C-alpha cells in the first residue's frame, strides 16, 4: 500500500504519475519521499526499512515526451528479463507491468548493501492524445524500456477561436 492510497482527498489514481515529477531532484521533495517511504513501510506492517520478501513492489521512473508524430515513453528498468515486461495500450492509457526477479545466487554471507529494487511493478500512464494502438512499438535496451506510440491524425491540436 502506498501512502497516497490512504490520503482520501487525492484524485484519480490514473494521474498519480503526474505528481511524481522530479521528486528526487528536489531536496524538499526528496525529504518528503523519504518520509512517505517510512509511512509506506510502517503501514505495510513490515517495520521501518525492512521490506517483506513476498509481495515487494517498486515504481520504475518514467519519462514521457510528446512530438508532433508520437508520444514516447521511457522507463528505467535495469536488469529485467525482456519476457517479464508486459506492455499494453487501451483507450487512453499505457500500462507497464512486470516483475523483476532477484538474481539467483548463493547468499551465504548475506547482504552488505541493498539499494536496488525488486518485485513487481505496475504503472498506468495517461496518454494525452489519440494513438494508433496497432502501431505501438516497444523495445528494451540497456535497461531502458522505450515505447513509441504514434499519434493518429485526429488527435492533432486544433485551435479554438473565441467568439
Amino acid at each position: 500500500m502506498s501512502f497516497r492510497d490512504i490520503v482520501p482527498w487525492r484524485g484519480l489514481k490514473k494521474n498519480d504519475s503526474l505528481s511524481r515529477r522530479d521528486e528526487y531532484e528536489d531536496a524538499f521533495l526528496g525529504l518528503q519521499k523519504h518520509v512517505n517511504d517510512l509511512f509506506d513501510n510502517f503501514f505495510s506492517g513490515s517495520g521501518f526499512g525492512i521490506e517483506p520478501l513476498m509481495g515487494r513492489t517498486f515504481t520504475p521512473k518514467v519519462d514521457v515526451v510528446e512530438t508532433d508524430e508520437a508520444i514516447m515513453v521511457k522507463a528505467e528498468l535495469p536488469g529485467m528479463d525482456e519476457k517479464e515486461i508486459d506492455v499494453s495500450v487501451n483507450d487512453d492509457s499505457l500500462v507497464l507491468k512486470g516483475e523483476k526477479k532477484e538474481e539467483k545466487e548463493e547468499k551465504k554471507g548475506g547482504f552488505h548493501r541493498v539499494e536496488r529494487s525488486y518485485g513487481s511493478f505496475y504503472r498506468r500512464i495517461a496518454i494525452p492524445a489519440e494513438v494508433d494502438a496497432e502501431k505501438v512499438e516497444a523495445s528494451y535496451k540497456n535497461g531502458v524500456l522505450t515505447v513509441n506510440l504514434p499519434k493518429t491524425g485526429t488527435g492533432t491540436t486544433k485551435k479554438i477561436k473565441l467568439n
Partner: protein
Amino acid sequence: MSNHDKEVEKMVFVPKVDVIEGKNNFTLRADLPGVVSEDVDVNLTGDLLTIAAKVKEYEARGLPMLYGEFVTGDYEVSFKVSNKVDKEKIEAELKDGVLTLTMPKAAEVKPRQIKVKAA
C-alpha cells in the same frame, strides 16, 4: 541550448548498488540504466574501486516533457575494497543496464579445512 540544459548535462548520480556475499565471491551490482559497456570505466587505485559511467545524449532532450521523472546524467560511485577481496581477480560485466562485479575472496579469508596428517 539554455544554461539549464547545460547544467543537466553535467549531473552525476550515484547508482543504486547491491553488495552480496557468497561463499567464494562478493558480488556487487550497480543499476546503470541507459549505459552501454564501452561507456563504463571500472578502476581500482589502491583500495579504491571507482565505477564511472557515461550516458549517451538522451535523444528526446529539448522536446516537450509530459512527465519527467528521471534526469539523464552520468553515474559515479566509489568503494573501498577490503583485504578480503582478491583484487587481481575482479571481473566486471554489463548487461541490461546492470553492472555486475564479481570479486573473489582472497585465499586467506576463504574457509579452509586443514587436513590432519596421521603421524
